[in-house]
């Protein structure tokens, strides 16, 4: 028997973008079965943290381990399901709901091999969990924002991940779809999945969350039992009664500059 390892373990994690420190000294460990909400105001660094946890942004300091393996050596990507912000999922060619969800199965497929029976079953199941089975042949652009969000979640579920990371799944989503999202995530939680999600407001997801991590200006301000939405706001405005929107990486470059 191997000892259980934490799906996510970040120690002293820092992220710099364009030479400016954005996240500083983040310690965050997520245990198997946790349902963690990363909360905070716009610009507090929650999306940056998620991008660092999924390897999309490099750490400037600290160490990240995924299922016990340092991120540099990590290869078992099929264990991680990522749901990016919805704005990233549009393209210039029509695509069907089924095709988007099927692309989530790539982590299990070898090159130049057709989908196996098992792959197709996983795709069908993922569509079923988010209740989009009847729309599988429809074009993605025909769907409402909330339905598109459910498709992106199904895409992550098709890979049958052990850890699901969602970036703002409820942003700009109508209430019925938020409820459908909460139902789908509730079924996953009941199956013992580990979930990390970024949220501005929890809404119908609130009953599922058993740990809240509150970000403020690139650092963790609170880590513990879930907070009510108004407490999140209080925490944020505690030190900055007149909070103004600000940009962590001022854009002093022309389009051809490297990022």
């Amino acid at each position, binding site marked *: 028997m191997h000892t259980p390892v934490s799906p996510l373990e970040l120690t002293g994690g820092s992220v710099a973008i364009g030479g400016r420190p954005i996240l500083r000294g983040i310690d965050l460990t997520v245990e198997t079965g946790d349902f963690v909400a990363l909360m905070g105001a716009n610009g507090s660094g929650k999306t940056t943290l998620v991008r660092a946890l*999924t*390897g*999309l942004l490099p750490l400037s300091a600290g160490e990240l381990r995924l299922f016990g393996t340092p991120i540099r050596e990590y*290869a078992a*990507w*099929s264990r*991680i399901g*990522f749901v*990016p912000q919805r704005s*990233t*999922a549009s*393209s*210039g*060619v*029509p*695509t*069907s709901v*089924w*095709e*988007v969800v*099927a*692309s*989530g199965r*790539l*982590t299990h*497929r070898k*090159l*130049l091999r057709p989908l196996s029976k098992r792959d197709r079953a996983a795709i069908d199941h993922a569509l079923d969990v988010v209740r989009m089975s009847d729309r599988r*042949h*429809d*074009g993605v652009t*025909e769907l409402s924002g909330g339905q598109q969000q459910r498709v*992106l979640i199904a*895409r*992550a579920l098709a*890979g049958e991940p052990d850890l699901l*990371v969602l970036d703002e799944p409820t942003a700009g989503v109508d209430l019925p779809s938020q409820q459908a999202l909460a139902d789908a995530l509730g079924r996953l939680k009941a199956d013992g999945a580990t979930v990390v999600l970024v949220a501005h407001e929890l809404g119908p997801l609130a009953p599922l969350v058993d740990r809240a991590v509150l970000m403020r200006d690139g650092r963790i301000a609170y880590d513990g039992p879930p907070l009510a939405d108004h407490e999140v706001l209080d925490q944020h405005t505690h030190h900055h009664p007149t909070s103004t929107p600000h940009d962590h990486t001022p*854009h002093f*470059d022309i*389009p*051809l*500059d*490297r*990022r």
Partner: protein
Amino acid sequence: MNIWDLLSLGFMQRALIAAVFTGLAAPAVGTYLVQRRLSLMGDGIGHVAVTGVALGLLTGTSPTWTAVVVAALGAIAIEVIRGRGHTNGDVALALMFYGGLAGGVLLTGLGGQSTSLLQSYLFGSITTISPTDVWVTVGLTVVVIVVCVGLAPQLYAVAQDPEFAKVAGLRVGAYNLAVAVLAAVSVTVAMRTVGLLLVSALMVVPVATAQQLTRSFRTTLLAAMLLGIGASVGGLLLAAYASFSANVAPGPSIVLLALAGFAAAWPLGVWLRSRRRLRAPFAPVLPEGHDVSDDHDHLEGHVHGEDCGHLAVAHGDHVDYVHDGHRHAPHGEHYDEH
């Protein structure tokens, strides 16, 4: 001499083989370029390839191979600038366009070649295709088609959502470079039939035509490839037929035929989409009160039902009939306003 005599000529048969293969390969790569919203990338690569052709003419080596190499380098440069910049690379494309074209014309002049020789590469010229060219074309296009269709799941995922693809463990940068090189190869092999300045049309127009009628990526890809063959073979035959009476280069006839296909498909696509929009179910939210329609008198006892002539749209567990700006749901002896 009639069209059959023309088809029995060796150069015409070679041109037809080249047209079939380029017609398949160009839209296959083009679909991935359109998916990334880089429709003009083929054009940028085509301009860069002009420098490659001129380099071949200047040094006395095969213009096809120098064009492949220079176009691939240009495509990689576009991809690198695009991957590192904040914008989607239109400035990078513009730099390539002008540098490539200017370099090509300059080199041709240095070599003392007449621009008419360069023109056969710019707009296509079926009579210049040698047997070796045909084999090179077939070989390279088969590679392009096999990669574009065989790696379709990976290429699709990378173009659809690069961030998701990266977290799924795909090497996004490598796949992006592969598409750029494939595009460069298809541009180069298509330059004999369509010509470098028009090749991008064969990559983009069939895709634009196909997506008027399709709803999935796979059918768009396959339909674009079929439309590509139709345009390139049909355009070539048109050019050959017209050559009895006028000097018609195959490039323009292929592109105009492809555009004619788009012009035919577009109104049909608009009509289909509007029909689908009108028939989409209404949100399953019922009105709060019971609002009985009182404007049914002008319909003179009209009974809504199947084939009653009014648009029937699903609304929750029943059907609303849409006419004159109303949504009428049958309710016993009368109709409710929904």
